[in-house]
């Protein structure tokens, strides 16, 4: 069956900041307004809105999408929020994709927002309650635990050193220097990472992306409308999503199987048979440095256990054979959860149109992949974008 084609035609974002003056709703409006302006549309031109935001505990509003609806352009429109934890930012694009691909709508806004600074005493506190209420929360867990345990399992399995992994933080923070919205663009060294304080061994402070506030929005349009709006539509060629069991303690944590499932689904839809040749830019989810590596492997863009080597060889640098997180990623730009995932899709949009300015990947890239991940190490969400 031939599917209806859907393009990204506009994008906008706020700065990612540690704590914003704007309300969560105002942040959404700022990003959405910019996305509309970027393709010359007004709210009247929008048929529907797909919203994404991660746990309500951050913004501090129950049924948070209702609160965010006006700022997301949802006044008097069909409006649905989707939610798969950290995977939400990319899932929202998939969510928006089927609004248009279904034939029900010709245009759809995708808006993701997170205001983590509303959550006190520390936004990490929200993560206590992602654990099973009866069997895990009484142990007083935090999010670092599961990342640290997954990182440890990954390192042990392939005999990786922390030094191999820290290169990711160094690369992404350097890339972020060229991103006008970045929170942490700077030059640091591997030793800076290795000498930063231990949070939950093996995780150190600089292995982790920063808590942030921010919003991102993109505009999707059907084939017909997209051609009317722009001569540079960026097509959604493939989508995939998958969710692993919640019984994470029963799983092999050294490999993200759910990311592979999502990637295979997206590759199949996009007709991609050799991802390493056919994907020109990758924006895998990098809330922690090892996650970028883990995900490159799950996306079949690196052999199992070999992503660190790719990184060390410079292949994943912005001017390498497979630029990875040229935006600066979550580690460099910041991590307002759902917004950070959508930022990756916005980055591909700009890169594939050749509009990424100082961050532009050389060589006219034609196809890119964005991926997010979340929950108790369960979610894989993948979107493949391409230009003709």
């Amino acid at each position, binding site marked *: 069956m031939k599917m209806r084609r859907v393009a990204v035609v506009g994008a906008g974002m706020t700065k990612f900041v540690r*704590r*914003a*003056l*704007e*309300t969560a*709703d*105002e942040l959404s*409006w700022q990003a*959405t*307004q910019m996305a*509309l302006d970027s393709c010359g549309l*007004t*709210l*009247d031109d929008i048929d529907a809105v797909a919203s994404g935001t991660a746990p309500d*505990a951050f913004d*501090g509003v129950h049924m948070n999408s209702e609160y965010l609806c*006006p*700022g997301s*352009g949802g*006044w*008097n429109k069909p409006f649905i929020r989707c939610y798969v934890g950290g995977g939400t930012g990319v899932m929202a694009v998939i969510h928006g994709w089927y609004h248009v691909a279904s034939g029900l709508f010709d245009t759809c806004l995708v808006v993701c927002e997170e205001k983590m*600074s*509303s*959550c*006190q*005493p520390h936004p990490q*506190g*929200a993560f*206590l*309650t992602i654990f099973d*209420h*009866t069997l895990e*929360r*009484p142990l007083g867990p935090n999010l670092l635990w599961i990342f640290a345990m997954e990182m440890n399992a990954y390192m042990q399995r392939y005999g990786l050193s922390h030094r191999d992994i820290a290169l990711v933080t160094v690369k992404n923070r350097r890339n972020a220097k060229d991103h006008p919205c970045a929170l942490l663009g700077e030059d640091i060294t591997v030793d800076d990472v290795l000498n930063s304080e231990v949070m939950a061994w093996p995780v150190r402070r600089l292995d982790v992306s920063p808590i942030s506030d921010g919003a991102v929005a993109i505009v999707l349009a059907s084939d017909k409308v997209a051609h009317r709006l722009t001569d540079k539509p960026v097509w959604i060629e493939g989508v995939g999503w998958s969710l692993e069991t919640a019984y994470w303690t029963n799983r092999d944590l050294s490999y993200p199987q759910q990311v592979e499932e999502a990637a295979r689904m997206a590759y199949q839809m996009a007709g991609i048979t050799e991802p390493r040749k056919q994907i020109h830019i990758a924006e895998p989810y990098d809330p922690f440095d090892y996650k970028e590596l883990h995900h490159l492997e799950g996306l079949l863009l690196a052999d199992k256990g070999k992503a660190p080597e790719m990184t060390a060889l410079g292949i994943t640098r912005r001017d390498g054979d497979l630029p990875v997180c040229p935006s600066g990623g979550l580690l460099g730009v910041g991590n307002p959860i759902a917004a950070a995932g959508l930022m990756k899709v916005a980055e591909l949009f700009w890169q594939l149109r050749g509009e990424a300015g100082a961050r532009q990947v050389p060589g006219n890239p034609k196809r890119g992949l964005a991926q997010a991940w979340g929950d108790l190490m369960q979610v894989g969400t993948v979107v493949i974008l391409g230009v003709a």
Partner: protein
Amino acid sequence: MGLTERLRRFDEAIAWKGEIPLQNRYTMGLAGERFFREIKDNARLMATHCPQCDYTYLPPRSYCERCFAELTEWVEVPSRGTVYAYTIVHLDLDEHPLDKPRLAALIEIEGCDSLFVHCLGEVEPEEVYIGMPVEAVFQEKRQGLITDIAYFRPL
């Protein structure tokens, strides 16, 4: 096939208790910051106006939810209006009956398209009616919060 085993006795049913232990700190936002400063410092209500939709927002919005325009036109509006709807609330948030029921109201403020949400005071429930003129009573000590308005009372 559903569950192959079920609880047989009441004492087998366990409920595990817990909470979401959080607190939140909210900023007032771009428009809210100015709105609450005006209440705090000057005991007056400021609204924003959307020229395109000819709609005046109170509390003010930094953007128009209808057309998405940035709203930069601020107008002072009177702190009085008329009751659009009211209700006598008998429960507190713990679902306990209130000793003294509270009067909540939607108030049409002159010059505004929004309806202001607040409580009524200095009036008995049976005296309130739709269309009743009311005015805001500001607290003496104000912190920049919506509760700096103590209530609205009959004019």
